[in-house]
């Protein structure tokens, strides 16, 4: 009926693919409401007072883990960083045992990052607390997808446009990118037109089955898009020669000032970070007026607060019934 009647019932956030348009909208609306908290002199609300959130990161991450940590703290939850490398995991304990042990300490949410796709989903069936996916393999990174869409929505508001009015390009190593997949789901569900751009080794035509276009020619795509999301070249995931050289990649797929000049005047440039400056994006673009890269980071905090509030809240209300 009205905004106040919207409700959220999911205790876990595992993928954006499984969410309805209403659920994505509820998350974005909540993030919008929570963003204000970070502008106060007292940056804290009591919503998750007495709740415990555990960061369980099996892959390196500084910004996502810090962002989740700050988000939980701004909601007054207690946060524990579970250091996998120094834990019993390195002594051979299974994931399920680790998770159940953590849960037995009275935990309300586990924020997990893992190199294997589907790990959060498996975990969610083995524990009764909330499970939040902070990135699983090449599958999804739901909070990154949400914060990207949130940032786009925020910049569109000035011109009265909606996500459904835009055409977005996601550029780079699509095949290895969970960021690309989460973006793709969020954008297409909200009605945006999406084009994936990259070398054929990293951006196969078969991705068109997901309801998007695929191009291997960045220069042909740029003049038509409202948003360019430049993915990081993930050297740690590239096994064989996906592209001949760094110089060649930059030549064909790097977003330079010259390329930016051929974009629409109000184009928005995104990058999930960390950036390889001079490779997929040049410094002039990354630090320029079209770049929303630092806004993405600020918005990430609001989005993660929204995810924690809604998922932990849903788990608590369901356990109370």
């Amino acid at each position: 009926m009205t905004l106040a009647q919207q409700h959220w019932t999911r205790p876990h956030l595992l993928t954006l693919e499984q969410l309805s348009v209403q659920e994505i909208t509820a998350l974005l609306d909540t993030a919008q409401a929570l963003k204000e908290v970070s502008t106060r002199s007292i940056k804290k609300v009591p919503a998750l007072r007495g709740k415990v959130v555990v960061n369980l990161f099996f892959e390196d991450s500084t910004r996502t883990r810090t962002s989740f940590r700050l988000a939980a703290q701004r909601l007054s939850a207690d946060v524990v960083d579970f250091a996998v490398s120094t834990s019993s995991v390195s002594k051979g304990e299974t994931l399920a045992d680790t998770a159940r042990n953590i849960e037995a300490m009275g935990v309300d949410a586990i924020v997990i990052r893992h190199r294997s796709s589907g790990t959060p989903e498996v975990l969610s069936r083995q524990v009764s607390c909330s499970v939040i996916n902070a990135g699983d393999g090449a599958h999804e990174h739901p909070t990154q997808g949400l914060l990207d869409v949130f940032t786009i929505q925020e910049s569109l508001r000035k011109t009265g446009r909606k996500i459904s009015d835009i055409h977005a390009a996601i550029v780079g190593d699509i095949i290895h990118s969970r960021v690309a997949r989460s973006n793709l789901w969020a954008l297409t569900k909200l009605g945006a037109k999406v084009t994936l751009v990259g070398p054929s080794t990293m951006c196969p035509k078969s991705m068109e089955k997901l309801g998007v276009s695929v191009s291997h020619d960045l220069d042909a795509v740029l003049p038509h898009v409202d948003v360019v999301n430049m993915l990081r070249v993930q050297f740690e995931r590239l096994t064989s020669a996906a592209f001949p050289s760094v110089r060649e990649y930059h030549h064909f797929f790097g977003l330079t000032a010259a390329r930016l000049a051929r974009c629409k005047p109000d184009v928005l440039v995104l990058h999930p970070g960390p950036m390889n400056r001079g490779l997929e994006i040049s410094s002039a673009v990354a630090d320029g007026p079209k770049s929303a890269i630092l806004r993405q980071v600020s918005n990430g905090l609001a989005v993660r607060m929204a995810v924690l509030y809604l998922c932990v809240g849903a788990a608590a209300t369901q356990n109370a019934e």
Partner: protein
Amino acid sequence: MKPLMNAAQIDKALNNISDQILANLLAESADISKLALVGIRRRGEILASRLSDRLSPQLKFKPPVGALDITLYRDDAMRAPLTIPLGTEMNFRLDDRPVILVDDVLFTGRSVRAALDAMVDFGRPQFIRLAVLFDRMGREYPIAADFVGERVNVDRHSVIVVELKPMDALDRVVIKPNAKKERATS
């Protein structure tokens, strides 16, 4: 169904409340130039804005109006159904200000308790007074309103609905009897 208050009665009640606020501020020798109104979203926000309009001719300035979302401060926030927060809009600090907190209905007192907690995060006001359009009695917390438009003892299973333009089609206060498992909103 006859409304508990119609548009003319709401109008009169707001005039009455605004007169009481002025008299009270003078009696308290408060710094009137720092007066601010804070409405609990969403109907309290509309009422606060209307009171600010009414007060401005006598005050010779328009007191600022904040919109407070108490969702994250409620004592039942983690109970079903989980509500999507609306967001707070407070573009000024509350430090050293006389503040009028405004809500549509005063019932259990739980919303006001949450609002007081929320307001403290925006500074330390000189004092806070409470203005409500409709006091239906039935308090569960030790809270009382300073300025009241209408006071009626309503059966606790009934729901009082305040409708205000522009959010609703017209201004009125109606009673909906015997709603099952109603969620106390005030």
